[in-house]
């Protein structure tokens, strides 16, 4: 319990740091976002119109520290400001629609690549010097070295454009009605194959190598030797004794990889015009929609923090030692 509270405290702190970064970044950077924001309206609008807009966007001349507290207050109430590009929609409304797709894309890619990669890693270590072990690591190192979005472009070009096996983008086709029905789910799955597939291909090697290396180490441990000496069946030794322990560092790494994979899947989203946060973020950057940009960053960060917390709970379940050391 104390462990959970401690981790929770850490994530709250990290969340606060992200919030603070979010607030001060635009204010510390050269150039005034307010000016940039209005550059494009100038000439089209009179000074009165500008002032009216200024107020609408909540840009004031209050002291920085006051602005900071106002900002924190707003964020706590779920008010992330108003998007410029999607004026006058609140940032939260703009983000909401895309979040589920990003979570779906990054989440399923992460889980699939984690499961497959880890299984392959277990296999490579277990049949050490076997075929999997000699082929998989260099191959996955090579695949992992390709930029996600490049793989996405190639996959889209070959399977979408040339062969037409998969749709060219979007999360589902316009023809189906979103909802819990088979047609929609199949459609979403079909649209997810290429984006998820490319992220999986790019990330699977990381899991494979991590798992393989830890597994090789664990296989040298006495408890695995003992398990073997006990005459347990090979699969039981491999999975319950070796893999189970080797999994712990991977799961810890899972939390950290999350942010990384999310970043990569943002790029993939752009290639597939997958309606998640990725394209939205880039669009926000291009249209200098700072409020939206910060909002997306904040939401992504919070999502990653939340996922990390879940990972912590999982490793708590996986590794009884954690329960002890902090209680």
């Amino acid at each position, binding site marked *: 319990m104390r462990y959970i509270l401690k981790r929770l405290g850490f994530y709250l702190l990290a969340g606060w740091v992200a919030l603070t970064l979010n607030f001060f970044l635009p204010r510390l950077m050269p150039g005034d976002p307010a000016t940039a924001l209005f550059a*494009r309206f100038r000439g089209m609008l009179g000074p009165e119109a500008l002032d009216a*807009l200024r107020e609408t966007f909540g840009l004031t001349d209050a002291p920085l520290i006051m602005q900071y507290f106002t900002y924190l207050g707003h964020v706590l109430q779920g008010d992330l400001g108003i998007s410029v590009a999607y*004026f*006058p929609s609140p940032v939260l409304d703009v983000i909401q*629609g895309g979040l589920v797709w990003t979570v779906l894309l990054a989440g399923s890619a992460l889980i699939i690549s984690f499961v497959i990669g880890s299984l392959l890693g277990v296999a490579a270590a277990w049949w050490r010097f076997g075929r999997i072990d000699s082929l998989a690591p260099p191959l996955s190192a090579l695949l992992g070295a390709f930029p996600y979005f490049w793989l996405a472009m190639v996959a889209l070009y070959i399977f979408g454009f040339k062969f037409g096996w998969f749709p060219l983008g979007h999360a589902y086709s316009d023809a189906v009605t979103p909802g819990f029905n088979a047609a929609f789910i199949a459609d979403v799955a079909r649209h997810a194959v290429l984006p998820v597939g490319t992220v999986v291909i790019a990330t699977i090697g990381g899991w494979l190598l991590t798992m393989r290396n830890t597994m090789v180490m664990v296989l040298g441990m006495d408890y695995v030797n003992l398990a073997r000496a006990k005459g347990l069946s090979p699969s039981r030794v491999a999975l319950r004794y070796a893999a189970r322990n080797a999994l712990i560092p991977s799961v810890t790494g899972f939390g950290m990889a999350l942010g990384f994979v999310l970043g990569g899947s943002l790029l993939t989203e752009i290639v597939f015009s997958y309606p998640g946060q990725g394209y939205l973020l880039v*669009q926000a950057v291009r249209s200098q929609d700072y409020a939206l940009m910060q909002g997306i960053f904040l939401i992504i960060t919070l999502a990653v923090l939340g996922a990390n917390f879940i990972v912590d709970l999982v490793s708590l379940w996986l590794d009884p030692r954690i329960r002890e050391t902090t209680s």
Partner: protein
Amino acid sequence: MKRGRMLRGRMTRGRRLRVAVPAVLVAALLVALAAVLLTGCTQERAPLPEGVLVVSQEQQASWIRNFNPLTTASAARWPTLSGIYEPLFIFNSITSEFVPWLAVGFEWRENNRVLRITTREGVRWSDGRPFTAGDVAFTFELMREFPALDRRGSWSFLDDVRLVNDNTVEFHFERLYVPGFGEIAAQQIVPEHIWKDVEDPVTFSNEEPVATGPFTEVRLFRNQVFELGRNPYYWQEGKPAVEALRMPALPSNDRANLALVFDEIDWAGNFVPAIDRVFVDRDPDAHAYWFPLTGSTIFLYANTKREPFDDVRVRKAVSLSIDRELLVDVALFRYSRPSDPTALCDAFASWRDPGAVAAGDWVSFDVDRANALLDEAGYAWGEDGFRVDGEGKRLDFEILTVSGWSDWVRAAQVITRGLADVGIEASVRTGDFGSWFQRVQEGNFDMSLGWSYEGPTPYTFYRWLMASDTVEPVGEIAPGNWHRYASPEADRVLEAFEGEADPEGQRELAAELQWAFVTEAPAIPLYPNPSWAEFNIGRFDGFPTAENPYADPSPNKFDRGECLLVLTNLVPRGQAADGSADDGSQAEEQ
């Protein structure tokens, strides 16, 4: 022992659970993968529904529901201005005419100080309430009260708007400003009975629009796609023939082009490279385009507040060094042609003055004359093959363009080569749109590519090229006239233009403006921009073409409601009542 049994139970459950969870996970994964592969290989692309026009104009990652036609803070949804709300008159840039729309007529009074507009009778809002002149007056009053809604700056020349009766409204001008008619004519009108209760029309997102246009009913709204159905009370009998508009969210030009090529879009306004090969050849019966040269004119702006561009001879020499034929070839896949000396695009073809065209001999490619002009201006050749100024400083400049705008970047590179031949070193400097726009607006550049501003008459075009009152000091934001050129001659003509309501008189003044331009060379015209328009003629009939140029074909011409001309003219194939029905049904079956 009791405790032992309890523990025993727990352990057993735990064991089973730990075996079961991975098994279920793996099974689920396998099933998902299999399902995905199967569906992936078997499912074909679903054909588009009949009668629904799929349009891609805005490039957005996802849609946010907002149908506010007045907001300035961001671009309104494309159909908000081109299908939902309607203006008083629509300026047809192909025929250079104002087409009466919600208004049927106008009349200048009191020495062109009062504009009286007669509104159309029998028009109804999409909720069935009648449209009246009161709605027009209300809309303008709303813009006066909330300046953030006054997108065209109408209240910079208006003094008052007065309702005369249910179908007449008077605009009282603060000063003599006949071109203001264009701004008033283009204003989208909102219903008073709805908007009078809106607390803050600036942030009003107007999710269920009530309007006079052909498509007002939001049939579907998702972040990926939305559809607008027909207005049940549309004032044009039997129109629109199109059942609904569908807007898929396509985030980029590239993505929209893919959708276009794969028949997922019926009407788009994108730049498509090598369009004949990439688009038309894939399905010549359905894929068509028409790129009339009615976009704005693309200029090379030289900062006239900086040496040596304050010298007209240098500006003309720069112009003469440019091989515009090569430029349109390399930069634009030959979609355009070199600009003519008056710089007017084809929307103003009827305004061109042949004399001025002949006099503007500096808008051509002639390296010798360019060199002669530079010699004359006193820029001698230096030792390294580039010219130097009076102080011996080499002539080297930056040409600004926007990164990602590859036509511009390529154009700038062609210009660089031409300049090198006349002894001027130029380098292309690309920046993101924001920083580029900031620099040109503040006049912080040597040379830059840029667009022009067009109105219904050449008045707007030349005003933003030459008028003194558009010149801002360097360092301050100027919405136009980034090259900061002031022509007293043009000022005089422009002022006369502001008071001239007679078309013949306007034509004479426009010729004078053209003469001023070709004489003073305030900016260097490169080419008229095409008005991009691609369409699927297999599914819809009635798009404007070179053979039937009844309106501008591009969905990009939505700001002044021009797309309404096209939308109300389109007929789904197979439903066509006229002779084209037969071809249509054949195309349908393919």
